[in-house]
């Protein structure tokens, strides 16, 4: 009986944690979108107002920020500085491929960043500013979508995890 109680408690805890984990995906995605918006604001300032070279502009823009997008941008900057045998578009696409399977980044943001990257750095400051504006507008829409998903599924996964755990425990008992 003691063994049954312990295993039931373990199952409830595990299922609850799984639910929390699933729910956190939605939280973390919103966090990542907001970090991405901050990075783009900083990057726009570096490019439009200071004309900083792209790799350095990326490094300056990600300073004091965290999250999965920071790692993506830093990887792009590293490649630009040390690997000179591919074009910027290739670097951007390859690095995006690397974070494609990250559970905390949505397809919407990936598509926005894919299109944005093809224009980054290759025109004058006025055009660059417009590309930043477009990307920011699209990210705002994506943030709203992510928030809706968070409200719709975030709480559901938390409750579902606990209930699933309890259900399995009751059956076993």
């Amino acid at each position, binding site marked *: 009986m003691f063994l049954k109680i312990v295993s039931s408690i373990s199952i409830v805890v595990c299922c609850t944690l799984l639910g929390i984990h699933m729910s956190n995906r939605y939280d973390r995605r919103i966090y990542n979108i907001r970090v991405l918006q901050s990075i783009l604001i900083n990057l726009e300032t570096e*490019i439009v107002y200071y*004309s900083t*070279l*792209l*790799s350095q502009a990326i490094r300056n823009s990600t300073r004091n920020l965290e999250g999965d997008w920071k790692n993506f941008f830093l990887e792009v900057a590293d490649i630009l500085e040390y690997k*000179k*045998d591919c074009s910027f578009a290739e670097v951007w696409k390859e690095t995006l491929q690397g974070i494609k399977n990250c559970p905390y980044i949505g397809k919407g943001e990936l598509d926005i960043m894919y299109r944005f990257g093809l224009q980054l*750095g290759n025109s*004058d400051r006025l055009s*660059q500013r417009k590309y930043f504006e477009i990307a920011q507008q699209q990210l705002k829409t994506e943030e709203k979508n992510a928030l809706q998903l968070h409200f719709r599924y975030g709480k559901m996964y938390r409750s579902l995890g606990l209930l699933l755990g309890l259900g399995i425990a009751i059956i076993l008992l």
Partner: protein
Amino acid sequence: MIQKIEKKPIDALNPILDALPDNLKKIILSITPTILKDLEEIRIRQDRPLMVYSRGRDYFLCRNGRLTHHADNAYIVSQDDIRRTLELISSYSIYAFEEELRNGYITLQGGYRVGISGKVVLGKEGIISFRHITSFNIRIAREILNVANKVLPFIIENGQVLHTLILSPPQMGKTTLLRDICRQLSNGFPGFGGVKIGIVDERSEIAGCFQGIPQNDVGVRTDILDGCPKAIGIIMMIRSMSPNVIITDEIGKPEDVMAIEDALNAGIKIITSAHSSGLDDARRRPILKSLIDKNIFQRILVLGNSLGTGTLERVYDGIDWSILLDHPVR
């Protein structure tokens, strides 16, 4: 006269090699070392043969780096080579070189200049940008030290620098001369203690700045306004940096004259240059004529190539028009 030419070792070509796509870089590195050592220009033109200029003549380059005089055997530059070269010379940051692109060049680390040509987009205020860039001329700058030795006795009198105008046709070494004058006046030399110099380097030619840092030796007491229009830059220098001497290149606009007059009124010496084959030629150009006739410049130096590039042909006293040097010196 001893002139010390600073030959760039092959390692010093690294900023240029870094600005080339891998395939072009391999071709350039395969050139025989003797030619590579004296390389002066790399010409990259879309759909045309890759060329280099070295030791006074040009060569086509084959895919394996072999030099040839037959264009048919040469490596033909592709559109992708051009696109990649543009990305690399601009460090993937076209926006950072907007102003330079309007002037038709980008300066690389090391002071190397890349000339650019292609289809220009015009606006109300002149060139807006390039739409199709189709060729690059990578110039390997050679810094020539002590070239100003022959000139300094004429432009310094009783320990004071004199207002000086250098007249020269293109490619006769006036920027090289200005740079060395700047270096020597700034560092000082036996009998001259060195003075504060302000360079207004509109086209980044004198100091060859990369990200604001001079890539050529322009002296220890020298401040540089890089990429700044001369007229604005001269006024800014006067107000902010209190130089003893302002050096600038290729004057020719009415506002340049006004700025120079401001500098004179502030007690600052001016050393500058202009495109002209001589004094008579300069007097036929209204802006230069007004400067010369106002007796602003105390010394007028004329450069030519009668004894080779950089020959000092004549020196005039700009006040009483006496000839201080009547035979060519190199």
